[in-house]
């Protein structure tokens, strides 16, 4: 097999590393003269949670300035969606924020529903809430494990992933895939929950609160953890708002803004839950908030599972112009076959209009903007993703802290590079 030439000449290396002159104006003059040190962190670094590159300017161990360099995972998903019909674009959205694909599905599906003026039946909405909250737990579990491992607590990852496997098992039960489920679709969900799903999730809801107690026993009062987390990476509420931060990073600063309460969707207004808020806005508060969100998600899940047992009916819209007919109808109804064929070849026309719809993902507000053309493909799809915004706030959040705190700060705002770069 032919392998590309060794790209190691000095000129070639400079081409992608950049020149010191290019940094003039971005870093302080002290860095140009060599008084402070420029340190390149990433894109290959175990604690940048992916392929984020940070150019840090250090005075001793203290961070003077920080330049995030993104785009190492730019996949062109938004551009690719312009090439696909609305239903077929859905699997691409899974792969943006790969820690909570269900939230991406939901943001996209809800935006398409808004564009088409399509209603979701009640059972479909309940199944969606179950999926979204399970996804929130799964995503926070990865965050917990990796954040702890970044700060030197190795064992938490093993506990967190043990429970995550159970959630992924439930996703597999629903959709046939562990991670990239493409389960939430415009008009409802792909199919009804299987029979063995309810006993499994009940068992999980029974066990999980005790597992959260275990995580707290490992970390919450751990003096090393507190030393690393308390008073580090403080985000003032006005800074958080000015940068447009959302999710636990914003609520850690004490700002009460959760789209599940502020702009309820999928019937969240009918569930009883609290929005945990922090006081200091530091890494420790953001940790506490996510831990409490586990418990709040459990509350929502318990209510949703109870409703799932009583509410029957269709799990997706029966409007067959936009949603495929049931599999069982295909053998009996010619009309169903025609709809099925039309949907999976051409798709459907959406109005020449623009919509924006946002939901609360585990990381914050993920919004989807769709501009239809009147035909079966969108003119433009854009996602407003929390990770991008949180990375843009890293320079102001990290200023003045130590180099070792940078790792804690990156972990605490919980970024996913696929979410940022798309």
């Amino acid at each position, binding site marked *: 097999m032919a392998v590309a030439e060794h790209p190691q000449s000095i000129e070639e290396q400079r081409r992608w590393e950049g020149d010191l002159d290019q940094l003039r104006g971005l870093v302080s003059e002290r860095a140009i003269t060599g008084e402070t040190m420029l340190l390149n962190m990433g894109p290959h670094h175990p604690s940048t949670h992916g392929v984020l590159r940070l150019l840090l300017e250090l005075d001793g161990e203290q961070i003077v300035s920080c330049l995030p360099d993104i785009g190492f995972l730019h996949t062109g998903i938004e551009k690719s969606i312009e090439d696909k019909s609305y239903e077929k674009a859905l*699997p691409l959205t899974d792969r943006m924020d*790969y820690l909570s694909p269900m939230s991406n599905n939901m943001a996209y599906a809800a935006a398409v529903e808004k564009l088409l003026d399509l209603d979701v039946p009640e059972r479909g909405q309940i199944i969606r809430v179950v999926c979204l909250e399970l996804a929130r737990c799964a995503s926070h579990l990865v965050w917990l494990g990796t954040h702890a491992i970044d700060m030197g607590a190795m064992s938490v990852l093993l506990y967190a992933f*043990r429970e995550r496997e159970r959630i992924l098992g439930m996703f597999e039960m629903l959709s046939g895939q562990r991670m990239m489920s493409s389960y939430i679709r415009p008009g409802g969900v792909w199919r009804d929950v299987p029979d063995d799903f309810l006993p499994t999730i009940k068992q999980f809801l029974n066990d999980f609160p005790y597992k959260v107690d275990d995580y707290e026993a490992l970390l919450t009062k751990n003096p090393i953890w507190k030393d690393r987390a308390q008073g580090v990476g403080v985000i003032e509420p006005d800074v958080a708002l000015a940068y447009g931060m959302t999710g636990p990073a914003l609520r850690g600063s004490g700002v009460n803004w959760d789209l599940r309460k502020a702009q309820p969707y999928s019937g969240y207004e009918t569930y009883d839950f609290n929005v945990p808020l922090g006081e200091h806005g530091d890494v420790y508060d953001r940790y506490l908030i996510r831990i409490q969100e586990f418990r709040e998600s459990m509350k929502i899940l318990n209510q949703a599972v109870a409703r799932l047992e009583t509410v029957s009916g269709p799990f997706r819209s029966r409007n067959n112009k936009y949603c495929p007919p049931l599999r069982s109808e295909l053998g009996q109804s010619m009309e169903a076959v025609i709809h099925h064929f039309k949907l999976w070849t051409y798709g459907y026309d959406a109005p020449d209009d623009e919509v924006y719809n946002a939901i609360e993902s585990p990381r914050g507000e993920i919004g989807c903007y769709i501009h239809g053309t009147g035909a079966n493909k969108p003119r433009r799809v854009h996602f407003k993703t929390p990770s991008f915004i949180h990375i843009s706030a890293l320079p102001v959040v990290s200023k003045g802290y130590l180099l070792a705190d940078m790792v804690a700060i990156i972990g605490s705002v919980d970024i996913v590079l*696929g979410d940022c770069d798309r």
Partner: protein
Amino acid sequence: MGVSSKLGNLGIVTTTVEQAVNHARTGAMWPLLFGLACCAIEYMSSQASSYDLSRFGMELNRATPRQADLLIVSGRLTRKMAPVIRQLYDQMAEPKWVISMGDCASCGGVYNNYAIVQGVDEIIPVDVYIAGCPPRPEQLLHGILTLHEKVKSERIADWA
């Protein structure tokens, strides 16, 4: 290994250099602590409690390429990331192996567009390809065991 069972009481094992070296190479193959995208999360799942890669001598991920034997390219490789991964590969010491994990790393996957390199083998040589989007941890384990088979079949003549 040869007549070892008969001579076990004497504390002597007979084998060939090839077999002994290949046994050592497969028994403690340290992967580079490196992840690109979604597949990296399944890779982490394989490392964690349920699948436990340490059963295959791989619990130790090295964050520096100088100490790593195996590069698992887990995820989509963008054009911006391509020079980085080539440099990481060049910095790894021989002998080194590469597993291309997932559809994106193997052939570009669903992304046939301007941003994605259509397969990591355009940049570095690959030993084992794993299909899946993302592959399950079992598939990754199977890929690793396939690589072990490949390494075990290497001959002295190939080492030069």
